[in-house]
């Protein structure tokens, strides 16, 4: 077992840096889903939404790069396209779950199937995308800070998206717990009837939260393909949408805990890649991949989950219902 290859500083720095990078797409999806679930809607379709965002982002970037010959700008527009594709999927989820009051589990699974098959279909139909590569967005080391030994390399040598995502964690937390609007969102997830009585529209709040959450998952998918991999392949998200759902429960709907969970996933994922690259047959890297799921179950097992779960999570609201 090449353990001596594992416990070196270079290895550790590489794993932690990659871990932060790998955490970002999942983190974005988790933050979005926290907002959605706080409003009482459970969108299980994230895997499909992330794929749609990933393809929309990649295809837009690729064609714009080819057409304009520019770098960076097409990638930013591509990220916007991923966000928009996520929002469109969110709209579908919202119509199903909120307007039609379809069971949310069924709606979510349908979204996954739609996202998986439609992205595969379109990817194959647009033959230009087959072996396409894009330039994406360059790393932006932060001046001064990135020169700090070890820490600088791990924390301050990333793409701008990584720093922005860090900011989004704070923003989401402030939004949910420090603003009036956040209070409304949490209230509609706890007791929609009371919110309706106070004169607010349950439908509007839930539509908005589902759209925002789904748009962020779409952005997460686009970050994966446009910024990190610079390519698209079928099923490129490889279960990250499901990981995101696990982490929402792991985090108890708290953005900061979600950041920790996403980093844990990212580091486990990076470690797993490295271990596979070392070529050691015996290393059970599958258990590293299981970690997010097992940890979520353990956290739910030993915590009192009922305390924080939005009370109306997963139940459709009928106007006039008490």
């Amino acid at each position, binding site marked *: 077992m090449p353990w001596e290859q594992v416990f070196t500083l270079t290895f550790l720095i590489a794993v932690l840096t990659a871990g932060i990078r790998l955490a970002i797409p999942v983190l974005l999806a988790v933050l979005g889903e926290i907002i959605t679930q706080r409003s009482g809607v459970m969108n299980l379709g994230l895997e499909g939404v992330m794929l749609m965002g990933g393809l929309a982002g990649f295809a837009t970037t690729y064609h714009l790069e080819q057409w304009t010959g520019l770098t960076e700008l097409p990638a930013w527009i591509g990220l916007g396209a991923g966000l928009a594709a996520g929002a469109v999927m969110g709209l579908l989820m919202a119509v199903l779950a909120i307007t039609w009051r379809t069971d949310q*589990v069924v709606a979510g699974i*349908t979204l996954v199937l739609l996202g998986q098959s*439609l992205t595969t279909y379109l990817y194959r139909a647009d033959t230009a995308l087959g072996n396409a590569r894009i330039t994406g967005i360059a790393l932006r080391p932060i001046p001064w800070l990135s020169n700090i030994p070890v820490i600088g390399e791990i924390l301050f040598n990333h793409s701008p998206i990584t720093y922005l995502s860090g900011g989004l964690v704070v923003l989401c937390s402030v939004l949910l717990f420090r603003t009036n609007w956040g209070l409304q969102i949490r209230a509609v997830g706890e007791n929609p009837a009371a919110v309706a009585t106070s004169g607010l529209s349950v439908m509007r709040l839930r539509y908005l939260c589902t759209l925002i959450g789904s748009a962020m998952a779409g952005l997460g998918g686009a970050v994966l393909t446009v910024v990190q991999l610079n390519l698209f392949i079928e099923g490129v998200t490889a279960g990250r949408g499901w990981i995101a759902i696990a982490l929402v429960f792991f985090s108890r709907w708290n953005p900061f805990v979600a950041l920790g969970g996403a980093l844990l996933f990212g580091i486990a994922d990076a470690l797993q890649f490295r271990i596979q690259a070392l070529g050691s047959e015996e290393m059970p890297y599958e258990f590293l991949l299981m970690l997010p799921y097992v940890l979520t179950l353990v956290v739910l097992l030993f915590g009192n989950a009922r305390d924080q779960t939005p009370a109306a999570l997963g139940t459709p609201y009928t106007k006039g219902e008490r």
Partner: protein
Amino acid sequence: MTVDQLTPTPPQKPWTHRVKPFAPGIGVLVALILSGILIQLSGANPFEAYKVLLLGAFGGTRQLTETILKATPLLLIALGLTIAFRTKVWNIGAEGQYHMGALLGGIVALTLPNLPAVLLIPLMMISGILGGLLWSGLAGLLHLKRGINLIICTLMLNYIGMLMVQYGARVPFRDPDGFLPESAKFVEAAQIPRLFSSRLHIGVLIALVLVGVVYVLLWRSPLGFRLRAVGAQISVARSIGLNTSQHILAALLLSGAFAGLAGVIEVSYTYTRLKQSISDSYGFTGILVALLGQMHPIGVFIAAILFSALVIGSQTLNVSLQIPAAVAGVVQALLVLGVLAGQAIAQRDT
């Protein structure tokens, strides 16, 4: 005053009421039109595409055989989920239960290769069912004893089960002589027998028998009545003295057993070894099959054939018209969306 005048006139039902029985049909029609537009956009004639699709799935003995083989795991899983969903038990862990069934069944096949088929096959089936029971039972335990949301328990166990198979195929049960991270091929005796001289196997027969069994269980047996009672209104079921936890667990275990059986049948006949990928998302698609089949065994049977036909037919579509085979999944998703929309619109204001 006559009796006629005393009876209040029933309120005028909106027009949607008359459409209601046809809602799923209209949904299917809309889905087919939308898919047709997509096919048109990718440069093929939709009518021709649908014809090719139908012929590719039903046009001959070989095509029909493939369609039936592909429908079998979907049918088994969806039948189990029908029991669960009728009890309002949201088991979305069929994918994991399927994998555990395949894993335990596969381990039996690999460790007892010298057993005669008459012993080995039943032993594999039992282990497969046990695998499904184990995984659904674990979810049930976490849900009923610790109050963890059942959707989350079953969902988490999905990937854990899938990764267990990947690990099993790569390390402990890997074929030392092979290049790929998979086990050696099962011995002949571990492959479930064929029906007559066709490519169909006895698993198909088992699935067909289970269509009837599930119907009798749900609508002609006391247990089925109690399960449906729990599903219809859990508070009423509790107040008439039913042990609801017990019934939730029973529904969960039954659906897990079905998924485990599907897993062991597939691994025994289709894959004939433990590999990195031994499922075509059957566990997830099965959820939609159960739903599209209106959670009724006959409906589920039709839906499983339909979903399978789309997959098999689209392979021909790919070869002859260069339409990506993934169109099958798109049509499946649109079908479900269409039916959901139809139901939602029909149920409004009635």
